[in-house]
């Protein structure tokens, strides 16, 4: 049946409209491909995505490494968990900014007029950002090894730690996606995301032990927020010590953030454009 022939009964229309899992995966793949091409062809984004994390590894390693003493470990071994998580937390901004730009340019308007799977726009965008994060985290790890980083548990533990960082990055993509869909433009999305990510990263155990903070309320916040939870789990997986409960707590945060913000973002996407 060609699309020009109109099957007027409702059942036939419903049948032709149904999209299977295969189409959803294919559409999400097309959207990821398009977002990754965009990344590769936007030099500023490549610089932002790669050079900045490298600079952070080097800066924290050499600038703060002398001042901050961590018992039992070289600072760089403690530091890496913080830099990984910091980088993906700030980097999650890309998801929301990208969506806000697509909304502004009218591209999402076109996508919504096409017979594609509705959720592929968001799935494709977050998947592309996950792919970007895999490369960024791998690059940082490599630089980390070059400046003396060592894991103390096992290689599998290290892979688990990196997987944890990537899952956390993916959950934050959905928070960022929601901001990007709510914001009237890319600049606002960026301005809205920055304070959230800055508070999460700096009021955490990313670079200093939480116990070293001198305000009780700050310690209480820092101890009970997702960035610290994820960093503790990553440190457990790379440095050793009691790990299982930390991993469970971090995964619970990741799952919670993903479920809450993915459903809010999907709901918002249905309304906008």
């Amino acid at each position, binding site marked *: 049946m060609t*699309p020009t022939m*109109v099957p007027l009964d409702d059942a036939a229309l*419903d049948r032709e409209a149904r999209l299977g899992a295969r189409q959803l995966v294919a*559409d999400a793949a*097309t959207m990821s491909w398009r977002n990754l091409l*965009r990344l590769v062809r936007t030099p500023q984004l490549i610089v932002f995505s790669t050079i900045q994390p490298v600079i952070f590894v080097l800066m924290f390693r050499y600038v703060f490494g002398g001042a901050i003493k961590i018992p039992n470990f070289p600072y760089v071994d403690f530091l890496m968990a913080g830099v990984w998580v910091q980088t993906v937390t700030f980097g999650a901004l890309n998801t929301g900014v990208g969506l806000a730009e697509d909304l502004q340019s009218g*591209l999402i*308007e076109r996508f919504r007029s096409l017979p594609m799977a509705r959720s592929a726009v968001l799935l494709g965008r977050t998947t592309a950002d996950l792919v970007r994060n895999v490369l960024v985290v791998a690059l940082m790890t490599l630089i980390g090894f070059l400046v003396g980083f060592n894991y103390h548990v096992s290689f599998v533990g290290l892979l688990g730690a990196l997987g944890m960082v990537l899952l956390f990055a993916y959950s934050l993509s959905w928070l960022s996606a929601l901001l990007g869909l709510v914001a009237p433009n890319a600049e606002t999305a960026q301005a809205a995301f920055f304070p959230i990510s800055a508070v999460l990263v700096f009021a955490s155990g990313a670079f200093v032990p939480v116990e070293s903070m001198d305000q009780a309320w700050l310690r209480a916040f820092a101890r009970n927020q997702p960035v610290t939870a994820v960093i503790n789990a990553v440190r457990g997986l790379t440095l050793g010590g009691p790990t299982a409960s930390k991993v469970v707590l971090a995964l619970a945060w990741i799952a919670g953030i993903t479920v809450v913000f993915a459903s809010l973002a999907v709901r918002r996407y249905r309304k906008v454009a």
Partner: protein
Amino acid sequence: MATAAVEVEDLKKRFGDVEALRGVSFGVETGTVLGLLGPNGAGKTTAVRILTSILAPDAGRASVLGIDVARHPQSVRLRIGLAGQYAAVDEALTGRENLRMVGRLCHMARAEVDQRAAELLAQFDLVDAADRPLKTYSGGMRRRLDLAAALVHRPPVLFLDEPTTGLDPGSRLDLWGVIGDLVVDGTTVLLTTQYLEEADRLADNIVVIDHGSVIAEGTADELKARIGSTHVEVVVAPDDAATARATLATVGVAAPPDAQHGVAVQITGGGQGVLEAVRALDAAGLRLESLAVREPTLDDVFLELTGHTVGEDAA
């Protein structure tokens, strides 16, 4: 079977305090072009967004090829193409990649996507630029690509939301040619525009919309007929002015002259009326220094219907 490819009944949409559509109804016959004409903020884009399943109306019904847009949006999307005023193409991709992306999102087979992309690039004169990123495209090329992207899956119904807004006159003429060719191929087109000339040139029927309501509809000629007819203006030697006036009075209604020794008359009957006027002047033995025919424009129509011209808000 309905012959209308697009039908809209009593469509209403409100954004906060703004009533974008206050009960709009119109239809587009299969294989014809409807021009939805109105100034900025008239509700044209809102109507198109409802018809293309992007926006849900507050009340009323919209259907495309007999399919209810609200109940079967996905079936409607399989059969429509949309090209917008904000050339919605991906800046980071090449022209060919943009067309391929749309083809894939329409679930066409890969080989068919590639073939269709090549075909459209040729049809829209974008072969040389096909593999260059969009950053290097001119405004006109971008619009042509946008239009091509709307045609990838060969939709029988096409929505063009201000397709030439912001283009230079040359590019506009180009695009008019392209749209004209589509209609020859049998595509049904709903076109929104604030250019009267554009509606006049492309549309079989025109619906004039202002502040969310339809204020007139008909063919361009019907709309023009509403506000009077063709003016013929002749310039003669001063001594002949009186004779010329008397002669022209026999074929039409005297109108105020606007040039020295000019005599003007408003006539009915289009070209035939002009011919009769010329014959009468010739029979009277008058020597004409010049003769001009002025057709009423849709600008005149709009002014007559709304009390303000297109582009100027009713303040």
